[in-house]
């Protein structure tokens, strides 16, 4: 309990720092720290699957994205000081936010007893999915349609980002070109770390069927390693108009949707799996979905095309 109180205070302190810091750089560092501490909280709440996602996506990839944005906006920070809202607005906002927090806190304290739960149903039907991890079972079997729609949402966000490119750059290469590292340190570490990272990513994806892990966590690590490789100039991002890239992006949702439709014929419903082949079908969906999500996440960080296709 003492540990948890300390951790909760630390989370709140880092969050307050993120809001209060003058410098945007420092605020982003605070945010990365916040994500890391939340991962610890999720471990304490016995939710290792969420802890993995928070560490990889909430802290890692979001942190990298915001760091990149803050360096590109670095020169605009000073001018914003004039736009600060007046003291009255600030005070009113503080009152409003305290009320919101108090209300949410009251709800937490007044949660019904005994707590409603779907855990028994999830556990009882776990054997039918052939999976050992109940969270993966929820994502891939019980609520598979949510996950299918989510992969589509990711693609829509990517289409939105690409649409921001000026006309003459449409179909070009995303992001700026990173400068070559002056003394090769970064090249060295990338050559060492990227293969290890890819291995860890595949492991986290693979272990997801029986233990905490899964396609989102694995795909996030793969995406981070791809971005790492481009930062170290081991490789450059492909132009967004490449046919193979488009194929990689849609293969996951397409296979997911196709197997979902096939469910009508073989198991009597959309996204229904026949019990004997449930695990095989889920894996058939998961492999391309992981690939598609990894590519989508990496390109989401990359941003709209900024270099023309030559």
């Amino acid at each position, binding site marked *: 309990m003492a540990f948890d*109180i300390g951790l*909760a205070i630390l*989370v709140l302190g880092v969050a*307050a720092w993120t809001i209060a810091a003058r410098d945007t750089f420092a605020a982003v560092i605070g945010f990365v720290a*916040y994500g890391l501490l*939340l991962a610890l*909280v999720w471990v304490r*709440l*016995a*939710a290792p*699957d*969420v802890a993995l*996602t928070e560490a990889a*996506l*909430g802290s890692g*990839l*979001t942190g990298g*994205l*915001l760091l990149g*944005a*803050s360096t590109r*906006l670095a020169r*605009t*920070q000073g*001018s914003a000081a004039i736009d*600060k*809202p007046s003291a009255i*607005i600030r005070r009113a906002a503080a009152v*409003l*936010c305290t009320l*919101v*927090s108090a209300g*949410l*806190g009251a*709800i*937490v304290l007044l*949660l019904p007893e005994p*707590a409603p*739960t*779907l*855990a028994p149903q*999830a*556990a009882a039907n776990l054997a039918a999915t052939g999976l050992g991890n109940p*969270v993966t*079972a*929820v994502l891939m079997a*019980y609520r598979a349609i*949510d*996950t299918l729609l*989510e992969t589509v*949402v*990711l693609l829509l*966000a990517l289409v939105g980002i690409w649409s*921001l490119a000026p006309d003459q750059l449409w179909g070009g290469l995303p992001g700026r070109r990173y400068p070559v590292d002056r003394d090769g340190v970064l090249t060295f570490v990338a050559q060492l770390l990227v293969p290890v990272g890819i291995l860890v990513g595949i492991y986290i994806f693979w272990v997801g069927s029986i233990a905490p892990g899964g396609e*989102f966590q694995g795909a996030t690590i793969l995406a981070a390693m791809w971005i790492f490789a481009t930062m170290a100039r081991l490789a450059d991002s492909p132009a967004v108009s490449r046919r193979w890239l488009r194929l990689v992006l849609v293969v996951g949702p397409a296979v997911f949707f196709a197997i979902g439709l096939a469910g009508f014929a073989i198991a009597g419903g959309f996204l229904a799996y026949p019990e004997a082949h449930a695990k095989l079908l889920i894996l058939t969906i998961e492999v391309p979905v992981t690939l598609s*999500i990894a590519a989508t*996440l990496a390109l*989401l960080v990359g*941003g*709209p095309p900024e270099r023309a296709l030559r």
Partner: protein
Amino acid sequence: MTDATLYGLCGAALVGLGLFGLIVHPQPLRKILAFNLIGGGAFLLFGVVARRGASAGLDGDPVPQALVITGLVVAFAATALAVALLLRLFQETGRATLRSDDSQP
């Protein structure tokens, strides 16, 4: 008080803190940061519901946990879109504020 309740109160406070940042910060990037802080707090509230639902040999209710994983991914997509919009605004106007054009010559 259980650990879950403690973290639930922590989540409630985080939502308030993030909301405050969202309102008072003039820079859009700080607003995006604050939006993600709110997200973290809201997900923690789900975590409390999941932890309290521990039964049938599971340490928590897997359904809210899966919802949080979905939520984290969608929040990331929204953040990436917001950042791209902001950078494009900066490229186009040389400014990264949300003030309307007529307030400046």
